[in-house]
């Protein structure tokens, strides 16, 4: 990953993290503020509900009070007590309830049994436990109706004055949708009432009545305008309030969408015995909060996106100021490493990077200068070595020539016969030494005139066979006692080489090997494919080379032979290098030497 990319990532991450941190903080704060507001509204509603509840209670109590004190009720109670016959008053409760605008009314006889019931006329004769309590204040009660349903109501019990034993009235009003509609509800707030016919209801007080279980039934949750949407979602909250008897709050998700969630509070409504008869739910929509949060999230995403774009621009600018000089330095270093010693990087400004660039340029300058000096030194050294070799090579033949010439000069004083003999010997020597000089000069000339390879597509076997044919017969005709061995594979070994130069190189190696085995031995020439290369080996069984000799073997003018020029292996190395190959030597003292030429295999195309 480049420095520019790192900078880009760093800036982007920094901007995004900063925006996310700010957005999260704002979201948490918004949620806190909304929840605070919801709690305050709920608390306000609860207090208003309690006031309304007390107001309703007072209304019910007053209505039943008025009924109990009415002349009609007094007369009815008197006649009822006197006659003991409740039958004529079977429908009396309905009439009285209608007049008093009560939803529930039961006339309870002296025996505590229902004389007349407005809400369940057929229930006459059954006991009404609520009448025995006779509390002064209104109370909550769940009233079972003929169809098996139950209604929650506020009830009051009053004795009709003047009748002894007392006749009681149990009257009440429903706590239903109309009650919910009368409650002061804040905007965004919905209230609902959950009640069912559970244990403790009137139905349970009827002997042998079918047992009512009270698992949560969403149909029993009724709002001010009717059914409550997604009522089943309230189950957990309502059950918690019913089971604990305590006010319970929580967040309810009415659908998969977060904006449909609500902050709901379940308020248990209890009777005087502490039984939970109903649960009032107050729900405040979290839609506003969710909208605000989504709005803030959208803003945060926008800001983060903009920040990341700014980060990209900033990183590009930073790159222009910081990373580009560093990249140029890196490229310059790579160029220097590739051998371009004259590489220079531009220097901008006065900062640390510019100092570094300036130092880099100074370094390359120094390196170029030192390289030039080194080349000049090496060239001088080479010339000196060449001169030394030339002097050494030429000195050997010149010394016999000098002696021969001086001998000829002295021989003039000899007899003509002796002179002739000396002259003949001297001229032979001179010719031999001059030929020796020519050979030396020719070798130097050959080394300096290495031709450019003319590549042909050949098989390595052909080269090996040609060398073997040339030198095997020569070895056989001499008394050197050298045995040739050829190790070739049948697989094709294509090479793209100059056949003459490769023949010349192999010939040099074969001659060196033959020179290395004056007492005879085995000379092995082999060729084998090796991955993408062809490996040619020339091995002898001579005395071998020391490690020092191996290290210097390919240095020009280095030779281990008494009359060698030291150019043979240099020529071989030059040929191999011109064919993009390598040459190496493996040897140990007394174990012979093996020269390995590795050439790239020619492609079939």
């Amino acid at each position, binding site marked *: 990953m480049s420095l520019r990319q790192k900078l880009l990532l760093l800036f982007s991450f920094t901007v995004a993290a900063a925006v996310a941190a700010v957005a999260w903080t704002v979201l948490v704060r918004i949620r806190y503020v909304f929840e605070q507001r919801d709690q305050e509204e709920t608390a306000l509603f609860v207090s208003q509900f309690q006031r309304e509840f007390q107001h309703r209670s007072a209304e019910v109590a007053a209505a039943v009070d008025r009924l109990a004190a009415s002349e009609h009720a007094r007369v009815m109670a008197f006649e009822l007590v006197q006659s003991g016959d*409740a*039958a*004529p008053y*079977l429908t009396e409760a309905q009439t009285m309830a209608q007049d008093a605008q009560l939803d529930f009314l039961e006339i309870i006889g002296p025996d505590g049994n229902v004389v007349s019931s407005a809400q*369940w*006329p*057929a*229930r*006459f*004769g*059954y006991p009404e436990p609520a009448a025995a309590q006779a509390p002064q204040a209104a109370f909550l009660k769940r009233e079972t109706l*003929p*169809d*098996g349903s139950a209604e929650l109501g506020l009830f009051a019990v009053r004795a009709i004055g003047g009748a002894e034993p007392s006749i009681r009235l149990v009257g009440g009003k429903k706590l239903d949708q109309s009650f919910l509609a009368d409650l002061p509800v804040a905007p965004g707030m919905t209230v609902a009432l959950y009640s069912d016919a559970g244990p403790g209801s009137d139905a349970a007080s*009827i*002997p*042998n*009545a*079918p047992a009512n279980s009270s698992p949560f039934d969403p149909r029993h949750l009724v709002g001010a305008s009717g059914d409550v949407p997604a009522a089943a979602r309230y189950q957990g909250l309502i059950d918690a309030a019913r089971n604990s008897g305590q006010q319970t709050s929580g967040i309810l998700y009415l659908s998969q969408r977060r904006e449909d969630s609500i902050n709901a509070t379940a308020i248990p409504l209890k009777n005087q015995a502490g039984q939970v008869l109903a649960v009032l739910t107050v729900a405040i929509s979290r839609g506003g909060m969710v909208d605000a949060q989504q709005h803030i999230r959208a803003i945060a995403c926008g800001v983060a996106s903009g920040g990341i774009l700014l980060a990209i621009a900033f990183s590009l600018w930073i790159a222009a100021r910081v990373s580009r000089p560093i990249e140029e330095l890196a490229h310059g270093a790579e160029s220097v490493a590739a051998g371009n010693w004259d590489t220079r990087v531009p220097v901008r400004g006065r900062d640390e990077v510019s100092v570094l660039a300036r130092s880099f340029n100074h370094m390359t300058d120094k390196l170029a200068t030192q390289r030039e000096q080194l080349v000049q030194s090496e060239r001088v050294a080479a010339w000196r070595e060449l001169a030394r070799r030339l002097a050494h090579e030429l000195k050997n033949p010149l010394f016999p020539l000098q002696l021969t010439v001086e001998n000829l000069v002295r021989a003039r004083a000899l007899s003509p016969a002796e002179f002739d003999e000396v002259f003949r010997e001297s001229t032979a020597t001179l010719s031999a030494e001059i030929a020796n000089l020519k050979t030396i000069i020719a070798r130097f000339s050959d080394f300096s005139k290495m031709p450019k390879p003319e590549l042909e597509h050949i098989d390595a076997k052909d080269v090996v066979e040609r060398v073997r044919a040339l030198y095997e017969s020569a070895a056989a005709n001499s008394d050197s006692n050298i045995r040739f061995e050829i190790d070739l594979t049948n697989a094709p070994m294509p090479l793209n080489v100059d056949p003459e130069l490769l023949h010349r190189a192999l010939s040099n190696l074969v001659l060196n090997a033959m020179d290395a085995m004056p007492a005879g031995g085995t000379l092995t020439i082999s060729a084998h494919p090796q991955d993408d290369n062809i490996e040619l080996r020339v091995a002898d069984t001579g005395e071998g080379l020391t490690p020092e000799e191996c290290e210097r073997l390919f240095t020009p003018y280095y030779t281990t032979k008494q009359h060698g020029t030291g150019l043979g292996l240099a020529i071989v190395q030059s040929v191999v290098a011109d064919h993009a190959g390598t040459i190496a030597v493996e040897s140990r003292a007394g174990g012979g030497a093996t020269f390995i030429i590795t050439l790239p295999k020619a492609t079939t195309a």
Partner: protein
Amino acid sequence: MRWTVLRRFATSCLIAALALPVAARTRPHYGGTLHVEIEGDPWQRPDGLARRLVFDGLTALDANGQVRPALAVDWSSDDNDHRWQFKLRPGVHFHDGTALTSVNVIASLTAACSVNCPWTSLRAVGSSVVFVGDSPMPDLPALLASDEFLIALTVTADGKTPNGNIGTGPFQLTGFNNGVLALAANETCWQGRPFVDAIEMRVHRAMRDQWLDLGVGHADIVEVPAEMLRQAQQQRLTVDVSPPVALLTLQVSDSGPLANPMLRSSIALAVDRATLFNVIFQKQGQVTASLLPQSLTGYSFLFPADRDLGKAHELKGGLSTPPLTLSTQGSGAMQLAAQRIALDLRDTGFNVQVVSANAHPDLILRKLPIDGAEPYAALELLLRGAGQTPPIIEPGLAALYKAEHELLDRHTLIPLLDLPRAYASGGRVRDLHLLSDGTPDLANVSIEDAP
């Protein structure tokens, strides 16, 4: 002496003056429109008040429940009551002028009874109608007096279907507007023209409104349900009450959840008749556990009518039933009685819901008519009203008791109360009498201030 003569003369004049209006009241006046209000449907059997005014039967029941001639003047049976021949009254015409013939009568009876008829075949023999049955039909004359077999014109003289309800009764239908059924006197009625010119019958009128209309003079005759009889008497209304003419009964399905006769028996024992009688029906009529009233058979008391909750529990045992449905015909006391019965059954462990309308309820609370003075005919009519096939009963009270006992042992009909019918009339209505089925004899009613 002179004062004595004068005193006697004055006394005579005073007596004559007092006697004059009394004599005037004895002569009914023709004319006027009678205003009647009812809660139900005037065409619906068995209480269809208008049916009795528009249609006649081959026979009729007099006030004592005895069979008397109507459209048939004479009848005879042979072949051990397997064959009956009814001779039609001559000179009788339907309201549209069509003459009453045996063919018309057969067409009407065939239309009224296509299945489960008392007879097997009908045949016209001159001006007579011959009924032939596979089994003896000893009570056929009484059966033909029932509401089910009133004669209506089904095909006119020119072979067309008549437009409307056309009979031979004392009144003919003239219209129905705004809930008021208009009937006009049949001037050529075979039993003589009725006193009033017309009857306006307001239908589906709430009981409280009927009484209000009666109080302010907008109605001449209104209904008084049994449960309101005492209230009517307290309000000093002029009320005519019939003897028990309807059997309040709980009809129990013998299929579905109540296919087990033990459950049906448990239900029969769980119902508290005394509460229904004492409270809901305000001690009117009488508690009964038999199909026929005590006045007809004399053995009704042999059937125990007391509630036995322990036995009911014992019979139900651990048998569980799904929620049962109970429907009832009528409103007011009938609904209340249904709810009370549901409560009674709940005490025994039955879960019963009172439903307003249900195609196949498990229980039906209904009133069945007790018509006539003949117990066999009354039982057959009652069972036909309940949709059950009457059994063949040998003559004799013991056989009747045995048959009724067997019927009750099935517990598909649980008798509860024998109830009367009653009507309250206004001050200008004269000579109101109730027929044997408890309906008012409007054909013989006159209006006092009629022109």
